[in-house]
């Protein structure tokens, strides 16, 4: 009998534990040319803001050893276009939707969540409190992301929580001393799940021109290079919170996804690796099913946090 892959992520039912990293799958249409994206546990959208955003100037990405740095700067179509053009397509496909949102204040986040819920354009909300690419690196210092400050995490989470009944996930940054702190703050403020990790801050310089490689100087590091860091952060958070975790950071294969699940993630997201292998997320689902059969796991939930220490 094939294993039951269904998971419940803080109220969001996913038919399998695999979604995609926000910003690595656009709004689903492009990759639907390679595989039926409705087979994913959920599609997570690019971060949506109230107004469309043009993002940073190019160059915005550079490859790094086993990974990449990006400073896209949240270019997105804005909530209006999303509701008008993207959500209907996703709905029509039958996708479960995690609507990822980004705002400049708790009120903006609340407004975004409210509109997504009101228009039935998402089945859960993921609040990106951790985008590294919307600050000027020349002047920024220290605590510049909401997710770096547990008090702000509390305030933002509470505001969004008050605005929506949809399952609410808070996406945190790894650029902290102890990821457990913002995670606990989010949980206490009413979040239904924690999404980790967003990218690590990094940069590159071209020695020939002596200029930064990214126009924004600093970007976010993703891909297999950061996977060990991400697994550790999932484990750190799983030790202290009761709400589920969506784990991500360098997942390419089912074996990678299993590391996150064994460390304590209820669901996982394939991020940058989709760029290399557009159907990687589908292959992860197939690989998880195969693993469960081979190991006689009837229900994938048995594996959550099942690392033997």
């Amino acid at each position, binding site marked *: 009998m094939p294993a039951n892959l269904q998971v419940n992520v803080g109220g969001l039912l996913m038919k399998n534990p695999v979604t995609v990293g926000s910003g690595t799958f656009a709004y689903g249409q492009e990759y639907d040319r390679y595989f039926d994206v409705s087979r994913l546990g959920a599609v997570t959208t690019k971060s949506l803001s109230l107004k469309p955003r043009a993002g940073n100037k190019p160059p915005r990405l550079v490859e790094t050893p086993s990974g990449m740095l990006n400073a896209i700067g949240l270019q997105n179509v804005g909530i209006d276009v999303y509701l008008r053009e993207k959500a209907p397509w996703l709905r029509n496909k039958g996708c479960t939707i995690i609507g990822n949102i980004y705002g400049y204040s708790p009120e903006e986040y609340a407004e975004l969540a409210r509109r997504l819920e009101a228009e039935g354009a998402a089945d859960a909300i993921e609040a990106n409190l951790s985008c590294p690419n919307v600050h000027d690196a020349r002047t920024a210092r220290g605590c510049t992301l909401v997710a770096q400050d547990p008090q702000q995490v509390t305030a933002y989470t509470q505001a969004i929580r008050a605005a929506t009944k949809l399952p609410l996930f808070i996406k945190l940054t790894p650029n902290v001393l102890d990821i457990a702190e913002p995670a606990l703050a989010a949980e206490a403020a009413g979040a239904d799940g924690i999404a980790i990790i967003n990218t690590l801050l990094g940069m590159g310089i071209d020695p020939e021109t002596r200029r930064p490689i990214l126009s924004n100087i600093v970007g976010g590091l993703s*891909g297999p290079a950061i996977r060990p860091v991400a697994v550790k952060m999932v484990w750190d958070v799983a030790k202290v919170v009761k709400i589920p975790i969506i784990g991500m950071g360098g997942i390419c294969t089912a074996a990678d996804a299993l590391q996150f699940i064994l460390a304590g993630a209820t669901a996982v997201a394939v991020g940058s690796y989709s760029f*290399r292998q557009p159907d990687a997320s589908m292959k992860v689902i197939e690989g998880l099913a195969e693993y469960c059969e081979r190991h006689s796991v009837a229900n994938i939930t048995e594996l959550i946090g099942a690392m033997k220490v």
Partner: protein
Amino acid sequence: MPYLSECEVTSHHELSPGHYRLVLHCPEIAQDAQAGQFCMLEVQQGYYPFLRRPMCFERIFKDSVSILYKIEGEGTRLLSALSPGQSINVQGPLGKPFPLEANHARHIMVAGGIGIAPFPALAEAIIAKLGVTPEIIIAARTDSMLLCEREFQQMGCKIHLATDDGSAGQKAFASEVLRALAPGPDTIAYCCGPMPMMKATHRVCEDLGVRCLASLEAEMACGDGVCLGCVVEAKVEIEAERMVRVCYDGPVFDSALINWDNY
């Protein structure tokens, strides 16, 4: 509809130092491919290099395509080690092709360095679909980097050579050669090469009222319009976006739509 196909290498030759022609057996992709489109090659099975490498189609045959490339770094170096009989994963065809517009008397292709790559396929398409024979300006740093001369000769194209060092053809930039050809409003120009060269070509075309299509380059992660990494700034909004994706909205753009001030 792009495909993800394991494709066999049917031939692979070094044409001049550091420049190669790779022929890939890929019936599905070849069937759909059009001049100006590109593919993403998985140069390695491991995670270094992490991303695929974009390469346009030099020529499109019934069951295969050829790729003309230059060694730039690790990815192209790995590519150059492929032997006939081995296979490589190819994603494509991607991007928008060159439009084939019948309402121009004169078609001039302007190639800078390895920017020659999409033009053999384009010339074939122009000849076959429009019944016109395009001219081509082949510009490069030096003689040994002038590629595809013979191919264009065989197609009957008028060829204008230029090198930076004067080692072959005129000692001039491609854009100056174009200006000297006195193109007019009856002319359509196609250019591909380094950004500064395309910017100069665009300026000449702007001056002379010539419609100019540029095949842009950019660092790409996905090649599929998803990551938003490969954008260039447009002068107007294209599908409600200022920052347009080279991979998806291009790589071929009307040069008048691009903000060249950034280059």
